[in-house]
């Protein structure tokens, strides 16, 4: 079963033209399978974590009742990006699933919104946020190892509490970053293949093979995003994660949740929204 579709170009060369569309259904199935597997794992197999003990009172005292987590700018970016991503997914894949509508213009307009949002986010993250807080660090690796041992039935010390973002958040961000950048970069190039007000359409910007690779990368990242979106919505709606979701709406987290799930030394105490 081929994961890409090949074709002969007018010069007789065999070039890729796009991904095989069954991957769309595969990604949908993978997302739903992950969802089901995780739900079953949490329900029947997951071992409770050892309690890390209470936070030192002097440390706890510096955590405000409502701990700011996401600035208004960060929240607007998140929801704008989410809307653009969902629009892009629907306009890309619903026509493939048989729903006929005029999708191309909506798709590239949503793509440009996403591109601008990503550019804004890059600047915002580098200059106005705690850039490294979203990247996995050594403590995360230790926690992963402890988690594996715990599932295997070993007694291990309590995991170190995370800073602003737990490892799951960080990993998801990493995957979304890879897909998002790939989609944005290839999508920007594909704007040269359709009529837009921005520049003259030029299908000869690249050769057929290069265009084929651009379409392949766009397609692979796009179908990966189907599974990623399912997983994201699933975690956002899980009861134990709802405080994180609420913080993305209202901007702040309850002090009690921060003390229970985060290390105030690493985040929360300075009450910053960085």
């Amino acid at each position, binding site marked *: 079963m081929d994961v890409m579709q090949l074709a002969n170009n007018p010069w007789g060369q065999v070039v890729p*033209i*796009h991904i095989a569309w069954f991957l769309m259904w595969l990604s949908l199935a993978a997302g739903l399978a992950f969802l089901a597997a995780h739900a079953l794992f949490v329900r029947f197999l997951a071992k409770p974590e050892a309690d890390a003990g209470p936070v030192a009172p002097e440390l706890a005292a510096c955590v405000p009742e409502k701990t700011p987590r996401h600035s208004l700018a960060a929240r607007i970016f998140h929801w704008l990006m989410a809307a653009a991503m969902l629009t892009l997914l629907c306009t890309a894949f619903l026509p493939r699933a048989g729903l006929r509508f005029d999708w191309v213009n909506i798709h590239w307009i949503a793509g440009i919104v996403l591109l601008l949002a990503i550019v804004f986010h890059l600047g915002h993250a580098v200059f106005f946020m705690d850039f490294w807080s979203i990247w996995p660090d050594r403590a995360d690796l230790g926690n992963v190892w402890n988690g594996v041992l715990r599932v295997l039935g070993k007694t291990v010390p309590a995991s170190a509490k995370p800073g602003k973002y737990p490892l799951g958040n960080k990993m998801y961000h990493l995957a979304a970053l890879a897909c998002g950048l790939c989609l944005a970069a290839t999508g920007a190039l594909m704007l040269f293949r359709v*009529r837009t007000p921005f520049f003259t359409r030029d299908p000869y910007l690249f050769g057929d093979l290069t265009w084929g690779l651009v379409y392949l990368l766009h397609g692979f990242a796009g179908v990966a995003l189907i599974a990623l979106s399912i997983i994201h919505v699933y975690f956002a709606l899980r009861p134990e994660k709802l405080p994180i979701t609420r913080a993305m709406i209202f901007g702040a987290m309850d002090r009690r949740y921060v003390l229970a799930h985060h290390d105030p030394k690493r985040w929360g105490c300075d009450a910053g929204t960085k």
Partner: protein
Amino acid sequence: MAIIRDIMPQFDLVQPASVEDALALLARHGDTAWVMAGGLDSLDWFKDRIKRPKVVVDLSRVAGLRGVSAQGDGLTIGAMTTLTEVARHKDVQERFGLLSRAAESAASPQIRNQGTIGGNVSQDAQCWYYRNGWTCYRAGGNMCYADTPVGMNREHAIFDAERCVAVNPSDTAPAMIALDARMVIQNAGGTREVAAQDYFIGPRHDITRMNVLAPGDLLTAIRIPAAFAGARFYFEKVRDRRVWDFPLVNIAAALVMSGERIERARLAVNAVAAHPVRLTRVEEAVAGKPQNESTAELAGSLAASGARPLQYNGYKVPLVRNLVKRAIRGQEEPWT
């Protein structure tokens, strides 16, 4: 012109004798089946070895799909009725002369004797890049070879081009829209009717098809209501050769008159987009106005609004304008 390679790839030929059998076969074989009416478009595709269906459902033995019959004040035309039969049918000539003229203008007498009305309205694009088997958008690829700086696009679209710039080449399709026809589509799940205007689709909605027929669907009949019966009709086809050619642009117009005033009008042009284009702005503008030169000028000025010509088909813009003027005047000039 495509290179004819003469020998068709192997396929199973099935020849149902009834609509029910045809529908059952189409349901069984899904998108591996190819519906063949008169065979004029199909056989070219097969000989060029570009379309390679596993099963060809030949409708030539389905008697129930042939003939013209009165239905209420209108007519029902079986999809397998030949273009010659449509053009020469007394009721069609007397009440819906527009369709008679459109059918008569298609191709050559031999082709009209074999070609069917269903096949004519449902025929595929004639873009030579697509017909030559290049993997363009319409063929499932990611490129339009006609819409490039060096693409040969003299015959291509000036309206609604969206990645693919191929045009619908049917002569009878604009007449169907002008007559407010309804297309009867059957599949294993039942029957539905769609307005002719909605039967044809452009690349914005589905870049690989020119009409709403999905695998398993069969166009079984076309119903012509009485709405425009006996109206003042106009059909004109501009083509490179008087004998046997596809249109560069064609126009079908039906004007319902009240004295010398145009009470209501319906106009459609074809070969300017991937679907016949109904000129609603022109229709609205001429309604209630006298049929004279100033109304014709007004209609002509509105006819090509929104047109975006390609490198080599700019001539279609004044052509559409002039055809609309002539349609409103009701006077064909001798050179076509």
